[in-house]
């Protein structure tokens, strides 16, 4: 009976509609996971930039939809879209819409959490597409492993909760990659690829780089078409429809859906590009050295990705590289090996995107800061390699122990749990301090701190600390943060507004506040002096992870 039930389930999973079922189940799982951990996630300094801007954009859209045509005048457009105009509006607009949906109209969530639901929804959409891609590549186990692996990466998990642009661009980047992949056999997907690429361009500057691996892949896939049909002639392969659509629809959509570009288009486009070409340096503490300008060395993104991803996932991804098959069949376009060639194509496509997403940050002379946030689009591709790695490990076990072939299901589950359980456990254990997570590869946070990595960043307004203030602070208490008080002035207003902090507690620029909080962030030049200054003060509350202090609260002055 049980066996028949399992067989039926297996058949269902392997059928085409089963692919959708697996993807939807995983999507639901991710949505529940992210929403259930949303309220405990602290507030980053970026939240205060993007959420208000998104609310302004969505308000403007509301005016347009209610036929308030004055909203289309230059003055009104600029009033709404001048906020945070250094980044395109799409992800912020989604946050703004979610603010109205989940807070303003329904009161389901506090204001900022409602805006952050926009990021949660985009992360959920990413899970859906990732599951579909992984399933098509290596089957249902790969879909499960890829999705669970992605959200078992602590840094990615953290960013999937906060109102920043990095997970949204990871989502839209992957959507672009996925749409192009599907467009190879579908004109509808080709048209869709252009739209998705346009939305990706409208999210963050990582998006245009998606063209690089796509062009390279298309060239590799069609290199035989360069062959001369006859002496003296040179043939160019046909441009893939999906790519054509991306090149035409994408930029059009970029201008059409960014109202600020409707006026002074060339000038403002120039400003946008110039801003990012000359991005101001941001402190980055890396291997015991502070970088501002010149920026950190090329290897910093690779090292950061390695040390902040659970070791077992890195190992599985490496195992995935060991066992990638079909690359030669794909290059040689062997008709007899169509299945292997398709698998090789998947592998090459994933590798090209993985390298591009991190390589653009590593090698293009752009600023490097904020841990791994600048190249979050890398991690879905790492998750795919993890999935491939587990699949390949299953094959390896069966190859070495042939008598287990009949128990393949069991081996799959066992290896899946072996790889995913430790990663998922450390991610949940580190919540909501995922930014302080470092893998066993460097000895955890203790080892990372000793080697010279930053133990946190983003000036996170921690809700545990707010709860401690609520319980312990006297009436009308004031709090002063060091070394970077100005960000907390803004984020603590959100905490109070959303009911996480008593309204009588205020952050002040005055260093004689009731409480002084020293965040142990060594990228600030003033940190050593501050640490010495506060050394003899009594600590009244402290957050430590594995013994390493993240912040200390002193009763001041």
């Amino acid at each position: 009976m049980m066996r028949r039930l399992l067989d039926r389930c297996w058949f269902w999973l392997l059928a085409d509609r089963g692919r959708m079922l697996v993807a939807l189940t995983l999507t639901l799982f991710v949505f529940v996971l992210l929403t259930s951990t949303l309220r405990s996630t602290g507030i980053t300094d970026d939240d205060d930039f993007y959420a208000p801007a998104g609310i302004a954009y969505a308000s403007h859209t509301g005016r347009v939809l209610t036929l308030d045509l004055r909203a289309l005048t230059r003055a009104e457009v600029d009033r709404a879209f001048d906020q945070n105009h250094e980044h395109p509006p799409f992800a912020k607009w989604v946050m703004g819409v979610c603010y109205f949906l989940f807070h303003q109209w329904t009161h389901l969530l506090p204001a900022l959490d409602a805006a952050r639901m926009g990021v949660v929804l985009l992360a959920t959409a990413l899970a859906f597409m990732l599951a579909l891609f992984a399933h098509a590549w290596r089957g249902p186990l790969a879909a499960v492993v890829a999705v669970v692996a992605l959200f078992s990466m602590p840094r990615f998990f953290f960013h999937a909760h906060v109102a920043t642009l990095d997970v949204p661009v990871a989502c839209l980047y992957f959507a672009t990659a996925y749409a192009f992949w599907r467009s190879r056999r579908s004109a509808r997907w080709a048209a869709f690829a252009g739209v998705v690429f346009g939305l990706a361009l409208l999210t963050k500057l990582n998006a245009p780089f998606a063209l690089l691996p796509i062009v390279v892949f298309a060239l590799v896939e069609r290199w035989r078409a360069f062959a001369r049909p006859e002496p003296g002639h040179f043939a160019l392969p046909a441009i893939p429809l999906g790519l054509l659509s991306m090149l035409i629809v994408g930029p059009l959509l970029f201008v059409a859906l960014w109202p600020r570009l409707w006026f002074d288009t060339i000038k403002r486009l120039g400003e946008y590009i110039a801003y990012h070409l000359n991005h101001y340096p941001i402190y980055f503490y890396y291997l015991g050295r502070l970088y501002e300008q010149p920026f950190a060395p090329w290897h910093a993104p690779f090292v950061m990705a390695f040390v902040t991803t659970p070791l077992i996932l890195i190992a599985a991804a490496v195992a995935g590289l060991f066992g990638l098959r079909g690359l030669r069949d794909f290059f040689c376009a062997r008709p007899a090996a169509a299945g292997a060639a398709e698998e090789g194509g998947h592998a090459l496509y994933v590798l090209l995107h993985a390298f591009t997403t991190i390589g653009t940050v590593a090698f293009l002379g752009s600023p490097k800061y904020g841990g791994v946030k600048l190249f979050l689009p890398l991690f879905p591709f790492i998750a795919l390699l993890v999935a491939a790695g587990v699949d390949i490990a299953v094959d390896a076990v069966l190859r070495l122990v042939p008598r287990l072939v009949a128990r393949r299901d069991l081996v799959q589950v066992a290896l899946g749990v072996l790889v995913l359980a430790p990663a998922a456990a450390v991610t949940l254990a580190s919540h909501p301090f995922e930014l302080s997570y470092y893998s066993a590869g460097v000895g955890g946070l203790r080892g990372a701190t000793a080697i010279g990595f930053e133990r946190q960043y983003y000036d996170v307004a921690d809700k545990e600390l707010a709860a401690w203030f609520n319980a312990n602070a006297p009436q009308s208490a004031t709090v002063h943060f060091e070394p970077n008080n100005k960000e907390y002035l803004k984020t603590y207003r959100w905490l109070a507004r959303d009911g996480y902090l008593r309204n009588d507690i205020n952050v002040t620029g005055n260093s004689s506040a009731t409480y002084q909080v020293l965040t142990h962030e060594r990228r600030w030049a003033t940190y050593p002096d501050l640490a010495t200054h506060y050394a003899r003060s009594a600590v009244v509350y402290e957050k430590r992870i594995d013994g390493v202090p993240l912040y200390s609260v002193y009763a001041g002055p």
Partner: protein
Amino acid sequence: MSSVPNFTTETPPLARWRAIAVLAVLAIAVVWSLLVRGCSHDAPVDVQTVEQLAQQLDQRAAGRTVVIHPPWRDDVASLLRQARPKLDVRLAAPVQAGLPTGALALVRVGWSPGPGAFSTLSPIDRFAVADLAVDLYGTPVSAATGRGDRSLLLGDVAALQVQVEVGGRTIVCSDLDPNGPTHRCPSLPEWNHVGPHDLVIGGQNRHCLWAHPISGGRIIIDAPWPLSASRIRLFYGLADSAVGAPDGQPVTLELFAGDRKLGSYVQPNQPGYNEQLVALGEPASEKLRFVVSVTQDGARHFCLDAVAERGPTPVAPVLKLPQSSSQPAASQAASRSAP
């Protein structure tokens, strides 16, 4: 799965080895993770271990400042302060020219993540109490170099006397910042202050005294304590981020001992942290004065430091700062015009 090989047949050796490699990678990751968890030599120190360390320091470093190295082991510093409240415990800045070196006991904290944790060493063996076997740059310093007692500028910044002469006025910068020993000058721009900063100069972090000159003005910094040294080792430079400023003007640093002008040093708009050994001849007892000036300000993020030294003047420089690849040329470019 995408393909199901026929495992019942003999598999090629390469495929077999590849299977072994795949499983080995996973196994290593699992074992490594288990080893590191809770076993690391980097574990935060416990009270008992720090008490042992404090007892060592009682014997070997009585009356001296204790510097914890590497500087991020604040867990060690914190517990050591609790164990010996009267002990002056500091975290070493990664690069800190002119710390009061001779008065220091350096505690080096070892680390070894991973299986190195299975060392047979007892916890106390993590620490090495040394009489500054290496300086804070990691450069060996032998006792014979006679490296001096303390930074003349950073040792007690609050006690420095700072004034700015500009537009025929003399402004006394006596507004000490409550957050730190920084001299602020009333009615002058905020950046026109004098105080300790960490700047990237010549590609390295430098802890030094910020003295941003003002157009046509002079910053005068007096070290009010009598000088007792036979030479001064002077450090100065422009922050790397400021060197790129277009039309950046050279900054002039003049050094006086009492009424005697010891030297005038010009820092051009070039990177590098320059070091000058200024011989005083006989051990001098005058007070030192540093004067910083520029014809036109604009991103003149100038920083300096000075260390007093005793003993005979060595023929060759006794201390070499780590240089970035571009620094030697820049150092040579910095011109010196002796009085």
